[in-house]
């Protein structure tokens, strides 16, 4: 099956800092989603971005499908950004499953 790797595994930043999270995947995909899992376990949809660039407030994401990676940018970090960030990919042919990456644990220090 498809492999999804995220880096870095852990990231600790001061409030106000910027960060870049990376997601590499091993094969072509139809769907890529970024999620934020908050400390209560809720998976919050950030972006649905199989290709191109999207922005939502302080967050933006870019997927380069031909090179099989996606980046999530967080600017001016706030303590509420803390949690685990997952990317997940899906291929529609063969009814493959949404495959989650290994996650990046982000901790924002006040």
């Amino acid at each position, binding site marked *: 099956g498809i492999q999804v790797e995220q880096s870095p595994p852990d990231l600790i930043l001061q409030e106000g800092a910027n960060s870049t999270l990376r997601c590499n995947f091993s094969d072509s995909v139809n769907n890529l989603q970024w999620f934020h899992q908050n400390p*209560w376990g809720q998976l919050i949809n950030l972006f649905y971005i199989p290709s191109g660039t999207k922005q939502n407030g302080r967050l933006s994401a870019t997927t380069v499908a031909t090179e099989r990676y996606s980046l999530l940018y967080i600017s001016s970090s706030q303590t509420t950004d803390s949690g685990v960030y997952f990317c997940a990919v899906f291929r529609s042919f063969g009814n493959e499953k*949404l495959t989650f990456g290994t996650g990046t644990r982000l901790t924002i220090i006040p």
Partner: protein
Amino acid sequence: EAGVAQSPRYKIIEKRQSVAFWCNPISGHATLYWYQQILGQGPKLLIQFQNNGVVDDSQLPKDRFSAERLKGVDSTLKIQPAKLEDSAVYLCASSSPLAGGFEQYFGPGTRLTVT
């Protein structure tokens, strides 16, 4: 628009007991998924329904887990009998091909502790 609803939010049971979780997807979403998330890992798909039919249950431990979606709307996941390794968060998600395809939306999850 209401999100995916799940209940209960937390459950503690002893091993060999049974437990059931309930999920109500986003209105109009034909596809419903149950995931298991063990601490420190990403969610793993257990079963996928399209309306009231099973599309994929290849990773569902069928000797102890069962799931149904009788009317094509809400769904129930059951574990009987529970084992210690079933301690995890159980997440329900839904999606709609009509809404542009493959984006999945997740509920708040049920945290199960088996003692």
